[in-house]
């Protein structure tokens, strides 16, 4: 394969080639504006976030509690019309230490996305969020965490109304 790379070397470009205009190029921005209909369940979920709590949905038949809430049970296809508030604590199911931001900038202090199983939801049910106020080296699966909320007047009805989840220590666990 290396031989073929030598045969077809391509035309490497660096950021400097764009800055000093040694190469011609066209820059464009696409305006990917969207409006996504939240539907019944997610609307209630966002509304609950604005009010400062997490909302799940309960299936009377399967006795499952899911978060975020939905209006149809994924297992038995029955309507789920019972929305229930859940605690804002949970357990880390999985996590990652990210040294690259969403727009591909390198960072020294990692962002730590994690799937958090929310207390009161059925086992293995949780949400993806970020961790904060934590030493990246100490993060582990099964770590207990709690939501850190924005103040009521800062909240807009978005998942970012929770700033992040931080570790908690509990007696007797």
């Amino acid at each position, binding site marked *: 394969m290396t031989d073929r790379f030598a045969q077809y070397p391509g*035309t490497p470009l660096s950021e400097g080639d764009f800055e000093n205009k040694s190469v011609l*190029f066209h820059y464009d*921005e696409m305006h990917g*504006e*969207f409006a996504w209909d939240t539907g019944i369940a997610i609307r209630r979920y966002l509304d609950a976030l604005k009010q400062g709590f997490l*909302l799940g949905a309960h299936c009377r038949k399967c006795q499952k509690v899911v978060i975020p809430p939905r209006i149809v049970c994924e297992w038995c296809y029955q309507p789920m019309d019972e929305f229930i508030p859940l605690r804002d604590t949970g357990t880390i199911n999985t996590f990652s230490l990210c040294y690259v931001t969403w727009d591909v900038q390198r960072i020294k202090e990692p962002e730590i996305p994690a799937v958090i199983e929310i207390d009161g939801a059925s086992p293995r049910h949780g949400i993806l969020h970020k961790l904060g106020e934590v030493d990246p080296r100490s993060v582990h699966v099964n770590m207990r965490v709690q939501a850190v909320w924005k103040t009521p007047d800062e909240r807009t009805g978005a998942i970012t109304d929770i700033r992040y989840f931080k570790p908690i220590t509990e007696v007797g666990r």
Partner: protein
Amino acid sequence: MKLPALDHSNPDSWRGNLPITNRYTYGLAGERFFRAIKDEAKIFGTHCSKCNLTYVPAVIYCERCLNRLDEWVDVGVVGEITTFTLLYMNSDGSTRQEMDMIAFVRLGDGGLIHRLGEIDPGDITIGMKVEAVFKPPADRQGSILDILYFTPKD
């Protein structure tokens, strides 16, 4: 815990904007093609001697026989209108303040899609000879818009 009432003043849709940006480089042939427009006010094609075709804009491979094309040809700045349209609408669907005249101008065995200028729309005919009008050298960026428009060539 009783569920609080739904606040109907909150939005029921989630709005966002995907910040998609891109930088397009023109490639080996495109780079040379646009450099010639910028620096020399010339339009170049590449000729395939095997297929006897002159590609405009220039390309580095013949799309018929796949041969590498090294023969660069100055095809001049005068072409022939193959087809045209009058635009009354912007790309976002809004009505244009001023109608735009767009034509495919044949050059070599290819051609360019570009604006027409200095002509009454009623006078445009298929087969009409038109000449490229370039921006002043200092204003040229190495873009197809370095050509302002094509105008009738007497």
